[in-house]
């Protein structure tokens, strides 16, 4: 009957009860949507980094990463590349010749990292080919063609089919240069990458640098990002003389961003739950103070304090249980829309592109998040009931009975 009294009490003031239900629903909705948006940011940032520059795993000769010396090549790189292609769970392997150098147009020059790639292999690990603004990603391979980013093209004042000169060190340590014609201009979500990387065909670069059949880097893409750590670990054991690194190891700042986002998310959710807590305390306290006489009567006729406490707790639990499905429903509805339409943040595109994030964020929510958030919300609601319940227990029956 204590539950029955609690249940019926809720409907004595439907407007107030609806306010609590709406608060719980809004708190849950805001919390989960924020998680989804943050998660969307992180997923897109990682996705962008992985599919433009990092891939999931990279293999180098140990000393190469330090100064990117063109002479430090992967021993038996091409054979290794072929072997890796046959490992289950690996969906893309691209052997790259990498060197740093200078790109010059008729009017400007810039420092740069030059990637010599095989377009077919590279498309299995990178999505740059899907981000072409003009031209193509070596679709009709012409010798000495180059694909570069739009920001770099603007900086150099060049267009499609313009000629540029790439200057870099050869395998013998001499300075060498080659004339290339622009066959494609791309634009990724990462403006830094667009300014600092150009792609040429591996054969062209090998010829000019004299690194025939040699590779500096093998980029690997796994079927699932969750397999990356295990695959990295396996490859490290298999090739102890080589430097095998996952994307988190290559770019620790990316892992840090993920961790910062996580922390920010918890802080914001904490603030939302705190606001929710004060909302519920306020409403439940009002409900308790309004029914002071009733609590006095109940205590007078013999209802003990634990039962009164439970009654108030039940009321809050029922209201919370009503609010939770509403909040989850609203979140799912919003996510169904936003996961397709995305959240347009074009006005922040400049800053977003510096972090490698596109203008449209697609919120992502893992199903596993629902349970902890729901539990946190329920705990918050129950904690919020403690003060009003404690207040009710402090009523003196002789005084409370005569309250109007």
């Amino acid at each position: 009957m204590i539950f029955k009294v609690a249940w019926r009490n809720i409907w004595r003031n439907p407007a107030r009860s609806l306010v609590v239900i709406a608060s719980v629903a809004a708190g849950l909705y805001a919390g989960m949507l924020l998680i989804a948006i943050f998660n969307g940011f992180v997923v897109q940032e990682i996705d962008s980094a992985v599919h433009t520059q990092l891939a999931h795993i990279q293999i180098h000769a140990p000393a190469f990463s330090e100064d990117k010396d063109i002479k430090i090549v992967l021993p038996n790189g091409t054979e290794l590349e072929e072997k890796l292609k046959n490992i289950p769970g690996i969906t893309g392997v691209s052997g790259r010749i990498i060197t740093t150098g200078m790109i010059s147009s008729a009017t400007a020059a810039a420092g740069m990292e030059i990637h010599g790639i095989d377009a077919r292999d590279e498309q299995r690990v990178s999505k740059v080919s899907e981000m072409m603004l003009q031209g193509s990603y070596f679709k009709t391979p012409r010798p000495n063609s180059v694909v570069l980013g739009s920001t770099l093209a603007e900086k150099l004042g060049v267009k499609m089919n313009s000629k540029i000169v790439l200057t870099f060190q050869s395998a013998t340590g001499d300075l060498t240069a080659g004339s290339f014609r622009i066959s494609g201009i791309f634009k990724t979500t990462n403006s830094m990458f667009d300014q600092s990387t150009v792609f040429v065909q591996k054969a062209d670069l090998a010829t000019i640098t004299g690194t025939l059949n040699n590779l500096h880097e093998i980029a690997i893409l796994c079927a699932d990002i969750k397999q990356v750590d295990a695959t990295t670990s396996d490859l490290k054991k298999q090739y102890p003389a080589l430097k095998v690194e996952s994307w988190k190891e290559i770019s620790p700042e990316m892992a840090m961003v993920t961790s910062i986002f996580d922390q920010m998310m918890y802080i914001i959710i904490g603030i939302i739950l705190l606001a929710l807590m004060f909302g519920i305390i306020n409403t439940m306290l009002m409900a308790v103070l309004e029914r002071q006489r009733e609590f006095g009567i109940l205590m007078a006729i013999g209802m003990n304090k634990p039962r009164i406490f439970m009654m108030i707790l039940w009321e809050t639990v029922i209201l919370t249980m009503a609010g939770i499905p509403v909040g989850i429903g609203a979140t799912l509805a919003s996510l169904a829309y936003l996961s397709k339409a995305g959240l347009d943040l074009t006005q922040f595109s400049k800053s977003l592109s510096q972090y490698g994030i596109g203008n449209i964020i697609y919120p992502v929510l893992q199903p596993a998040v629902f349970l902890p958030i729901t539990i946190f919300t329920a705990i918050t609601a129950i904690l919020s009931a403690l003060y009003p319940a404690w207040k009710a227990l402090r009523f003196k029956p002789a005084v409370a009975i005569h309250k109007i």
Partner: protein
Amino acid sequence: MNEVIKITDVSKIYNPEAIPVKAVDGVTLTVEAGEFTALVGPSGSGKTTLLNLIGGLDHPTSGTVEIAGTNITTMRENALIDFRLRHIGFVFQAYNLVPVLSAQENVELVMLLQGKSAKERSDRAKELLASVGLPDKLDKRPSELSGGQQQRVAVARALASKPGFILADEPTANLDSVSTSNLLDIMTRLNKENNMTFIFSTHDQRVIDKARRVIKLVDGKIESDSRQ
């Protein structure tokens, strides 16, 4: 003689440290089983305070209150709640039923708190509501009942726990003359047939006329104690 209530030199002072108000001043009183007692006196004479002290709703500043041989003066809050549940029935001026429960549920609530079975609760609640003339109002909520009917439900609720006595604070103050007459008939019948002890505060002459003992309080002291 069977003493149900024994009050010895009880005083209640409100605001003892600021402006002390002596609501009850050295009252000594015994009430025996089966008495039908009216506490009368002008407003502020201490009737309600004395009822609260007898009912264990308040603690005296000094003196002792014994109910059925148990000194309740020193009892802790939770023990007092449990004691009230088993020994004392209350009827209040403003009926004070739980608004979200039906008449039957209001009567059953006390028995539920006593841990009685669902069947026992239901049977006794129906029996009590029939005895106060409301056999057809079991499912009605307080808002669907008249003041007189609500007060009869309150009497049934007070009886539900099979208390040693019933305390009623101005039970007819909010009732019209017909309802007052009906309620008095029920209370006197319960007193005669079941030997139920009633102590009530009142200003109502019709109620005073029915009482067999009238205690008059003035300024917190017993001015007169007469049997009629």
